[in-house]
């Protein structure tokens, strides 16, 4: 019972924070001087990018733990996290060009960060496709291995593309965040809201996947009884 109450409170808090984030983005945060209104996409873009990488990192960790422990629980976590990661990565890849067109005057440029994100998106789409076509008895193993390979590819891709020059704005440096105070608070708020949103998506997706596995098992037993 307490678990149920906790779950409901969590969802409500996530919802309220998302509303607050929307208010902060569109009303509280000032309009940027040179870029204008289009700069507001930044509050969506940055948290989504962070969460996409975070989700793929969870897939990477869960894949390692799965190969070590061979518990299906971890395979489910890796799969669900990869799926949500692809979702956030898609958001990043859509919002990026919308911002870049008026500011850089191009939709796309082959900068290390952009290219790495795109490649990462391809890799985890491949991960999801692999899960779809592989034989059931090997699905968890193969996708875990690919989850590890895919994430190991990120740093090498980044350094390889660095052989060219970068123009992506560097907002967060080692000295702190390089923007005005209200913008900083808005970003912080959207970060928290998106993070809770991510957790809630992940939690529900895992729940759904577990139910799916359970129904499959029930159906298998049912068919066995029915056929005999």
């Amino acid at each position, binding site marked *: 019972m307490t678990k149920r109450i906790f779950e409901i409170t969590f969802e409500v808090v996530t919802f309220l924070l998302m509303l607050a984030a929307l208010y902060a983005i569109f009303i509280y945060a000032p309009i940027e001087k040179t870029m204008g209104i289009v700069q507001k996409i930044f509050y969506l873009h940055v948290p989504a990018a962070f969460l996409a990488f975070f989700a793929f990192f969870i897939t990477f960790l869960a894949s390692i733990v799965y*190969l070590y422990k061979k518990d299906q629980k971890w395979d489910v976590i890796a799969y669900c996290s990869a799926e949500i990661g692809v979702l956030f990565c898609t958001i990043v890849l859509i919002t990026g060009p919308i911002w870049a067109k008026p500011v850089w005057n191009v939709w796309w440029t082959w900068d290390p960060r952009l290219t790495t994100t795109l*490649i990462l998106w*391809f*890799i985890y*789409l*491949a991960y999801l*496709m*692999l899960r779809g*076509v*592989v*034989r059931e*008895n*090997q699905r968890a*193993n*193969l996708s*875990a*291995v*690919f989850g*590890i*390979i*895919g994430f*190991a*590819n990120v740093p*090498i*891709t980044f*350094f*390889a*593309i660095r*052989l060219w020059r970068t123009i992506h704005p560097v907002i967060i440096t080692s000295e702190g965040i390089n923007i005005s105070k209200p913008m900083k608070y808005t970003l912080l708020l959207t970060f928290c809201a998106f993070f809770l949103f991510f957790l809630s998506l992940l939690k529900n997706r895992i729940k759904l996947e577990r139910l799916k596995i359970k129904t499959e098992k029930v159906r298998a037993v049912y068919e066995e009884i029915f056929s005999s």
Partner: protein
Amino acid sequence: MIFFRKLWAIVWKDLLSELRTKEMILSMCLFSFLVLIIFSFALGAEVMNLKTIVPGILWVVFIFSGLMGLGRAFGAERDRGTLPGLLLCPLSPWGIYLAKMVGTFIFTAIMEIFTLSIFIILFNLNLLPFLLPLGLIFFLGTLGFSAIGTLFSAMSAATKSRDTILSILVFPITVPMLIAAVKATETILAGKTVTEVYSPLKILIAFDLIYLLIAYLTFTFIIEE
């Protein structure tokens, strides 16, 4: 020592069975020849500044034709039903992987040498003065390609739509190798010395080592049913 003798036995088996049919190596070479022809038609008769596009063409041909050979590495074993026999070899999974990788490397290298000779004739390019540094780059690039390719070949052999999934898996992962290899080839062809390609070479070496290490750690899970 015994490890290497066992390893060589598997490599030799692959070479021998390929030598009997010549099915794969011929199709790889023919395919790369055709892609080169397509490229020369697509680029037109007179290409300005050939040396800047040569590395790109070469590596695209290598990867496309190499992909044909990759699928066969484990796909053929599964088709013939010899995969369980191979896995029963008194050799660790890592040894089996390494043997298959050496086989893939040899086939890809033969195809590359063939492609290069055709390329020199068709595009009238003198590669001889750059042979040594280019050889090093091609060696490292092909090693990395075979390392991940063999791993994915074993993976895709367990799927329903083998070749499609193989290319979807291989292409995004080879991106860093491709960038570094093309960059290095370009620099060498521009007449610069080997010291100027250190950074791409470092990436190529890191790529090879990382994927060989991952294969060492995970190959046993791929063949496990």
